């Protein structure tokens, strides 16, 4: 048996025990204060650098609400919304096909994902923009017969390029979402006599949407930013508008900052919308939006996944 010293620091005789109302002193965390102070200092240095740097902040303020910029931001929003809608539609269509009993449908969905997820979105935009080089005319008997350049305008090319690319990502998201709905849900629907279509529409998909809503929110935020790529195919969205202005007045960084402010405003609004959407749909166990203390608690949450 090991010998215990009589006066070890752990030895507290019963007679010395305090009463139940004894004061508790919390552990201090000086490290937190120091690291917080360092970070605040660095932030202050960065802010000061920009404040005294060669940026004419008055020009930033002046162009923030310029008609061309606001119109450009309108186009940015429109492209993003259309492309996201297209992406979600394609994602659900191909995501369901990925799980089809029919191997040919499964293969087609796999091919779609393989091609559009495997090539850069900028490249896809350029190809859509130049699709007239491959197909000079768009001819569908009895419906359309037009020159391709008239059909695929920069706007159409932007929506197709961004939407089809997003759809390839969402296909995998939808497939995973459907796969993670409990098998028993489907069996219960079947024993009630619901057809596969009814089961998918009424039981599986509503629960899938709840599961993938956070991803869809990230998609929307990502799309708002990726729409700036359309500037390269002569689409007059916000970045393109800003470029056209600074080619003339030379206020390059000022106009880029104007864009940054608008993009941040847009993504912030989307983040808030995403929070309320998730909370609304989170009222059952299908999604785990456990924290309901408010938007700010959510905004300060630790980053769980790399957001686009």
């Amino acid at each position, binding site marked *: 048996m090991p010998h215990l010293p009589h006066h070890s620091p752990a030895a507290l005789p019963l007679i010395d025990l305090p009463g139940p109302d004894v004061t508790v002193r919390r552990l201090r965390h000086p490290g937190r204060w120091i690291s917080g102070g360092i970070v605040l200092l660095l932030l202050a240095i960065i802010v000061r650098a920009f404040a005294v740097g060669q940026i004419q902040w008055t020009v930033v303020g002046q162009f923030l609400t310029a008609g061309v910029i606001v119109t450009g931001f309108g186009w940015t929003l429109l492209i993003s919304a259309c492309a996201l809608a297209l992406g979600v539609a394609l994602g659900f269509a191909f995501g369901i096909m990925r799980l089809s009993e029919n191997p040919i449908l499964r293969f087609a969905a796999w091919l779609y994902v393989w091609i559009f997820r495997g090539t850069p979105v900028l490249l896809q935009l350029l190809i859509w923009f130049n699709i007239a080089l491959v197909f000079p005319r768009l001819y569908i008997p009895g419906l359309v017969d037009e020159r391709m350049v008239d059909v695929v305008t920069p706007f159409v090319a932007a929506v197709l390029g961004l939407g089809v690319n997003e759809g390839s990502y969402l296909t995998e998201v939808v497939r995973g979402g459907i796969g993670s709905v*409990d098998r*028993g*849900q489907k*069996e*219960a*629907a*079947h*024993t*009630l*006599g*619901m*057809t*596969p279509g*009814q089961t998918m529409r*009424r*039981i599986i998909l*509503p*629960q899938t949407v*709840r599961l993938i809503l956070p991803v869809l929110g990230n998609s929307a935020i990502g799309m708002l930013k990726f729409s700036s790529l359309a500037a390269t195919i002569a689409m007059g969205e916000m970045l393109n508008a800003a470029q056209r202005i600074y080619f003339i007045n030379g206020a390059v960084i000022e106009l880029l900052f104007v864009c940054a402010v608008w993009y941040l405003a847009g993504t912030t609004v989307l983040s808030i919308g995403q929070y309320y959407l998730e909370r609304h749909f989170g*009222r*059952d*166990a*299908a999604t785990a939006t456990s924290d309901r203390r408010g938007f700010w608690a959510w905004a300060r949450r630790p980053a769980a996944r790399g957001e686009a």
Partner: protein
Amino acid sequence: MSLAVKAVGIRKSFGSHEVLKGLDLEVAYGEVLCILGPSGSGKSTFLRCINHLETPNGGYVWVDGAIMGYELNRGALQELPVKRLRAQQSQLGMVFQHFNLFAHRTVLGNVIEGPMVVRGLSRDEAEARAMGLLEQVGMAAKASAYPSQLSGGQKQRVAIARALAMEPRVMLFDEPTSALDPELVGEVLEVMRNLARGGTTMIVVTHEIGFAREVADRVVVMIDGEIREMGAPQQVLSDPGDPRVRSFLSRVLA
């Protein structure tokens, strides 16, 4: 007594493992049949074959004048389109071990789903009938709750109401109390006891020997994918002829 269910030579394999080795069973209307047996004996698989959640590899199940999943065509079984199979399946109410309530629907929403979507009832009519059933299982007060807010016993009572809402010919129970905390088992068994008293035809896969002894008209003991013993509960449970059944019962009754 007219026949409700007749299973003929049911075989089922998963890969090379033969789970069911040619089972025959008849259940009459109004009868309560309990299927007992050690875990892995194939009793759940047998129940799932009866309502075609699993397609048997051999044999077939006749329910109330039709063969599940097939129609007899020039001496052969022609597989039915999925819509007609589902219509047949809706004649058999199923209660699952893990409840399988629709997580995105309220208690009431769960119960009206089948009648509205499959039977085409109006919402008002479906809700009125659903509330009656929820009353019957003692869950009317929780009609607007979501499944995640319920205890296991409450979930299972809602699941029973949901199955009853389709007015099935036969109710199938797949270990309905196995996933419950011990103190919640009683409330579910009580609902089932009331159903049995009301004359509902029931096939119950269970580990509750006491329930089987009290409520069942007949008891089946399955071991290794075969029916080893069948008969009145007093006879099967107290004096089984088969030595493996005797050893199983002595273990669960101990």
